[in-house]
């Protein structure tokens, strides 16, 4: 994707004024309520007209106020999952789902409606009228409807809010698979840093109508170690779980890790909070923690009383969060050897 945006839109007291270029395939938009996220989506999709500016997608000019270009929404092939589902009330679930699909030329229909409905767990609802759906069901139908239109770019406005975690983590990997398989780029609004990291590569941070920052999702997560309320989480791909007593051994790079959670054969993605890693100068004695990894310090970052330590453990990389005092006490500097201790229960399987 190559999305170039430089627009300005004025609404009563609110002014949106952003200009950015996105090349990443999956991009998140993050920002407090009322910061202009939905407005941006409407502008991109052609549902609102900017006061001035330019929008270009993959080299094609979709809007240009000086050249008086304004491609209508239906020709932009930009899919939108609205914050409120806006399902067609006179059609059943199936007809809603297939609305865009039927309007997509045959060769561009790259997604299997049946499979999608199964993943979204709406396959048993297909013949139902949409007015009798629950909130979460509506949201899933809206999500499916947009994806099936096989657009060139998908804009999603909090598509997963209102879904329980379990469902969310069933849907996210599927979406990731589909979007990368068909190289459909994605602009994703969410209030959840967690969802953001799982779905987006890069994040635009909005505040009061302006783009305050743009940074890799990974970086945003690291910063949250400093400013956020929940801290940084390592995402690890662990493979080949084997039972060992009550626990499970996973392969991570060159070493084995001990986890409480079982996983699927092959690769599994686990989350490990930076705060869950404790560092020791020497190998500790009897501990309730199951994983004791010798590591080398690769770097130190962070400000104030939260310090991030980047560790290299036998090929793998981990971020650990500690306090400044510990830096002094454990004599942590680049190249130092430390022992990282991780409880088997600290790993949280995402998918």
């Amino acid at each position: 994707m190559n999305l170039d945006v430089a627009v300005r839109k004025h609404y009563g007291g609110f002014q949106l004024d952003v200009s950015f270029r996105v090349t990443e395939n999956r991009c998140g938009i993050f920002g407090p309520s009322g910061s202009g996220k939905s407005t941006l989506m409407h502008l991109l999709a052609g549902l609102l007209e900017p006061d001035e500016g330019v929008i270009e997608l993959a080299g094609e000019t979709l809007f240009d106020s000086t050249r008086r270009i304004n491609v209508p929404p239906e020709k932009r092939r930009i899919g939108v999952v609205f914050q409120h589902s806006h399902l067609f009330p006179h059609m059943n679930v199936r007809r809603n789902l297939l609305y865009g699909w039927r309007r997509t030329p045959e060769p561009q229909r790259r997604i299997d409606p049946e499979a999608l409905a199964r993943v979204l767990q709406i396959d048993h609802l297909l013949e139902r009228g949409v007015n009798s759906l629950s909130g979460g069901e509506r949201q899933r139908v809206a999500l499916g409807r947009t994806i099936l239109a096989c657009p060139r770019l998908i804009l999603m406005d909090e598509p997963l809010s209102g879904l329980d975690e379990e469902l969310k983590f069933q849907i996210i990997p599927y979406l990731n698979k589909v979007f990368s398989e068909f190289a459909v780029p994605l602009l994703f609004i969410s209030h959840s840093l967690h969802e953001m990291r799982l779905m987006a590569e890069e994040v635009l941070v909005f505040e009061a109508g302006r783009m305050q920052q743009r940074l890799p999702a990974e970086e945003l997560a690291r910063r949250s170690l400093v400013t956020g309320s929940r801290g940084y989480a390592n995402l690890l791909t662990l493979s080949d779980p084997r039972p060992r007593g009550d626990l499970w051994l996973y392969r991570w790079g060159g070493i084995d890790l001990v986890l409480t959670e079982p996983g699927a054969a092959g690769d599994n993605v686990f989350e490990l909070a930076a705060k869950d890693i404790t560092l020791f100068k020497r190998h500790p004695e009897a501990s309730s923690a199951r994983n004791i990894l010798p590591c080398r310090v690769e770097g130190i970052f962070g400000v104030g009383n939260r310090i991030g330590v980047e560790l290299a453990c036998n090929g793998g990389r981990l971020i650990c969060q500690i306090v400044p005092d510990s830096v002094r006490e454990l004599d942590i500097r680049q190249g130092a050897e430390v022992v990282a201790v991780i409880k088997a229960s600290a790993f949280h399987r995402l998918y």
Partner: protein
Amino acid sequence: MLNLAPQDMQAIWLSAQVAAAATLLSVPFGFMVAYLLVFVRLPGKALVEGVVNLPLVLPPVVVGYLLLLLFGQSGVLGPLLQALDIRIIFTLKGAVVASAVVGFPLLVRSIRTGMEEIDERLLLASRTLGARWWDTLLTIILPLSGRAVLAGMTLMFARSLGEFGATIILAGNIPGVTQTIPLAIYEYTNTPGGDRMALSLCLVSIIISFAVLLANEAVSRKFRQRATR
């Protein structure tokens, strides 16, 4: 009570034909005009609306007179119609035209009111899903204004059943050919002692319109069911 003469039966049959034909023929146009007025930005909109409303504002007799000027042999369209061998004046076609013109503003108004209540965001959603304007028109606007269209049709049908002024001028009052119920009633009321027969015909009118009304309700309820909870 309903002792109808054979010529009354003819009038009833003619009336039903005229009302149905006028209604069905007008619906596509009425829908288009309403769409134009609600969704399309164009400068002379007020003028279009004024013209559509004309037949409502003018006394039906005047409307009939104007239609005569338009469709008559020496009228504006007369030569054209003659070339096409279409006769409007003094035929049932004339009655249909008269009813259609007189009922048209009612139809348009009703459809408009329904269209104006459609959630605009649904239209936007359909467009982001790749629907062109005419596609959105057919798949979203048309079904969602279905009830309003039905309401307009009922209104127009009823109005056609009662249409007198324009019809009598344009179609003439030829028993068995163009004499619809209102014309027959008029004759009866102007005959001393004809009141009873007039009343019978009124009742027939009422019964027909009632049937149409019930049919409308039934269909409309279907539309509504799909949009509740």
